[in-house]
């Protein structure tokens, strides 16, 4: 069975979707990712969906689930590179992803993850300090 490769880069995991996801592949990806986050202790996950031309409500939900799941495992997730048509479809389907971070491209997504990881690291080293970091409140 085919699998979506998950790459590790420092303390981040990177997934780049280059083919259209079908349901079982998406579920397999979700499982693999959850395992990988625990194995590697990753703090950030970046999912690049710029190669995705088509989504249905199931894929939309799975992507949302993945983000929530990774947050539970203490890894910030950012989904990047969504095509306009995909965005319109998701809105039409009523998928809002209130707790999912999105960015325009991989570069901005990585910059966000870096910023977020640095901030949370700073918070851990100095817990008594009050932070007004907007990202931490999500």
């Amino acid at each position: 069975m085919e699998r979506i490769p998950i790459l590790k880069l420092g303390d981040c995991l990177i997934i780049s979707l280059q083919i259209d996801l079908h349901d079982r592949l998406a579920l397999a990806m979700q499982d693999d990712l959850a395992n990988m986050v625990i194995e590697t202790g990753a703090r950030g996950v970046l999912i690049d969906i710029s190669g995705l031309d088509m989504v249905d409500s199931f894929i939309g939900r799975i992507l949302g689930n993945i983000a929530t799941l990774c947050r539970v495992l203490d890894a910030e997730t950012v989904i990047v590179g969504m095509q306009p048509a995909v965005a319109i479809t998701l809105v039409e389907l009523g998928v809002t992803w209130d707790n999912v971070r999105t960015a325009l491209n991989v570069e901005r997504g990585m910059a966000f993850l870096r910023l977020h990881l640095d901030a949370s690291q700073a918070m851990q080293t100095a817990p008594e300090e009050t932070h007004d970091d907007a990202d931490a409140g999500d």
Partner: protein
Amino acid sequence: MSTSTLTHMLQTDSDSLLQEWLTEQLQATTLRRDLLNEADLRRDSQIFLNALTQAVQVSPALDIDGAQWQEIKAVLAALSRNRATYGFTSSEVATFVFSLKQPLFQRIAAALKESPQKLQSELWSVTVLLDQLGLYTLEVYQRSREDIILRQRQELLELSTPVVKVWDGVVALPLIGTLDSERTQVVMESLLQRIVETESTIAIIDITGVPTVDTLVAQHLLRTVAAARLMGADCIISGIRPQIAQTIVHLGIDLSGVTTKASFADAIALALTRSGFQVTRQVSRARTP
């Protein structure tokens, strides 16, 4: 239904019929001499008569759905479309066909003086035929007018949705006119496309030019904002006039998830601040008169 008299007449007497028909058309009050000269009218009438002659020759059946009527229908469609573009009214276009009745009826009456029974059925057949042709002309006329309207609407739609790049990473969409579903779709698509092209993280939607905001318009706006957010861009809605703000509150529309600003200038200032830009004024310059 068939009409042998008509067939015979069209074959033998077409020249004088054409002449009489032309006179009829030229006398009609609906003739637009400003849009149509006599030579063109003669040419159109000649083409129509030829096509009619051919059609009734092939088969005497007078049902214009038949194959032999295709050509005459094409002639009428071309004529009707042409006149619609030039701004003829519907009755002016229809008169072209209907005015053929008088010269034709006179001839038929003269030919069938002896047998009133036959005359009546013949007249009825020809009336039905010409009415069908006239109505077909009208249909085409209406369709071409609708096409014109549709095209203009399309052009208007494209004209009214410019997405402007305000700054590096900031695009603006000044909306003008009422938002309906179709327009929102175009607006949404062009905005998202521009966001991708310019790699903008902030989009300002300015609704100064939107006359009224109802729940539907608000819903469309919120959907656009949601789609942009999914792509990783934040939206600021600006240009909310006092009345619009009151309407929004009265309707209970929840805009709490969206950044809103009263004026476009405020929105730009916020966008620049968020992107880390700073606008400063040089004091020495500002003081000079």
